[in-house]
């Protein structure tokens, strides 16, 4: 694994990595700057409803005359914030559980693996819907529910990495020299386990974006009036007879966001570990 600059150079070198990097940068700028430069995404102006794209409304307006460029930017920001938080939380919880299981072995290891297996036995969206049915909708609940779905993946990978590290000569050496387990974990396990986990995290960002958009599309994710790409698609879909624009704008943004982050994630994986090239989704 090279330095950060070398990794980005590697990503830029492959054509799909370059497309991914450009798309991710564009989506990031749109999400960060879009809401700053546009009108209030929740401002209702019914007389301006269902406008086609123009200079004042770059993506047109919706059924309440709200500016769709501003709303799509707000929805993109929500998608990115949620996916980053979910991936970070599941990486953190998963790696703590996975490293603990790998280090402890025996009964604890088996227990953690069984919990991961049980969570993975549920079709992901169905489990998310069940949890939302029990605990209700809302931003915090949405984060909590989607994080649960992703913990097993990170946990399994952290455990596998820990197991392969545990009997490396340098770890044995440190142990013989009397390094406490806590320091051993912080100084040697975390840094060595983290690399592959970050790659996994970047590959999971588009998956989280898709699940968030799907749940919001069903009305179970981000709640109105806050816009989300999923709810924008749904609202547009209801008024399809009047105008196609509300659906097209948000659906294309969603597709570009997932495409860009997937290409970026794959290029990052190939750059970080050339051995893995061509494997996985």
């Amino acid at each position, binding site marked *: 694994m090279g330095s950060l600059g070398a990794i980005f150079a590697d990503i830029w070198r492959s054509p799909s990595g370059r497309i991914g990097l450009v798309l991710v940068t564009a989506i990031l700028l749109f999400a960060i700057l879009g809401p700053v430069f546009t009108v209030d995404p929740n401002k209702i102006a019914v007389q301006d409803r269902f406008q086609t794209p123009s200079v004042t409304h770059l993506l047109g307006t919706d059924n309440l005359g709200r500016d769709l460029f501003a709303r799509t930017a707000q929805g993109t920001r929500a998608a990115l914030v949620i996916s980053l938080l979910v991936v970070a939380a599941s990486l953190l919880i998963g790696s703590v559980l996975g490293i603990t299981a790998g280090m402890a072995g025996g009964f604890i290891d088996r227990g953690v693996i069984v919990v991961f297996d049980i969570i993975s*036995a*549920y079709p992901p*969206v169905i*489990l998310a819907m*069940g949890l939302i049915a029990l605990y209700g909708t809302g931003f915090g609940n949405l984060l909590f529910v989607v994080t649960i779905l992703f913990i097993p993946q990170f946990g399994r990978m952290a455990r596998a990495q820990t197991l392969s590290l545990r009997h490396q000569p340098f770890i044995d050496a440190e142990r013989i020299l009397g390094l406490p387990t806590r320091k051993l974990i912080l100084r040697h396990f975390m840094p060595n386990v983290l690399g592959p986990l970050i790659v996994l995290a970047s590959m999971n960002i588009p998956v989280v974006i898709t699940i968030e958009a799907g749940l919001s*599309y069903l009305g179970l994710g981000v709640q109105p009036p806050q816009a989300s790409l999923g709810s924008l698609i749904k609202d547009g879909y209801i008024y399809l007879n009047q105008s196609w624009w509300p659906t097209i704008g948000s659906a294309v943004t969603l597709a570009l966001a997932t495409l860009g982050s997937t290409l970026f994630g794959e290029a990052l994986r190939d750059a970080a570990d050339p051995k893995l090239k061509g494997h996985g989704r």
Partner: protein
Amino acid sequence: MSGTIGRFIAHRMAAALVTLAGAILFLFIIIQFVPGDLAGVLLGPRATPELRAAFAQRMGLDRSLPEQFVLFFGNAIRGDLGNDIITSRPILDIVVENLPNTLQLAGAALLLSMIFGIALGCIAALKPGSMLDTVLGVSSVAFITTPSFVIAIFLLLIFSLQLHWLPVTGAGKPDDPLDRLAHLVLPAAALSIGWVGYLARLIRASLLEVLTEQHVRMMRAYGVPEGRIVRHFALRLALVPMISIMGLGIGDMISNAVFIEYVFARPGIGTMIYNAIRIRNFPIVQAGILFTVLIYVSANLFVDFLNALLDPRIARSLKQAV
């Protein structure tokens, strides 16, 4: 030899049963953490005091937690899901009514994705670097990453609303197979397109790997035609990774079927769960969850068997896997 496979199957079945039991326990635990009055939260605002009392009785809410669990577990494995609070019909009947629609949708999507995925993957692997291979490589990524409900909406816009080739919503008349098939085409296509792209990529990669192996080069040296090598020898090996991944694929399809059923207003397990959440009717949600877990775990079990039959080395590696 057959003893190895028999032991492997027995081991996988035991593991699947443990997972199922664990999944029921997990469901019980997450229900326990619901804040507030359980009957009120799970049955929603419509529930009368009598209904709540009946629910508390059924769940054994006045008993100790272990007793409650035994009751919950017993009901779940006996398939006793209780009666619906609105229609007072047995919930099992409602599930059985909706299940075939979802199974047909997921089954059709599975079939479509395997047929087209294998075909396109073979074509791409036989001529790597060709125009077709490049087009396939680029478009498959786009299809994989676009969420299935977005694909569903665009298919609906184009083929139903613009071209009027296929019906818009529903599952078709129950006694008219042709009508049902017409209603199945677009939802199954929407559900499978991503997997077609994914499987084509997977098959292409594993075929290219297999085609460089010693025994394949040997066959080529003996003058066996390339098409025959692929069809009779290489493809069988290349199918193993695909079948493993389809275990996950079935979970993904059951998940995404929820969105697809919603877009096409199609009856099914997803629609059933969704409607039950909207009106706060948890017993139905719970029944839907239990059945989808059962389907998912059984599908994975089936995938394990299939893999062990295709590649007996998998069964023999049991010791390392445990």
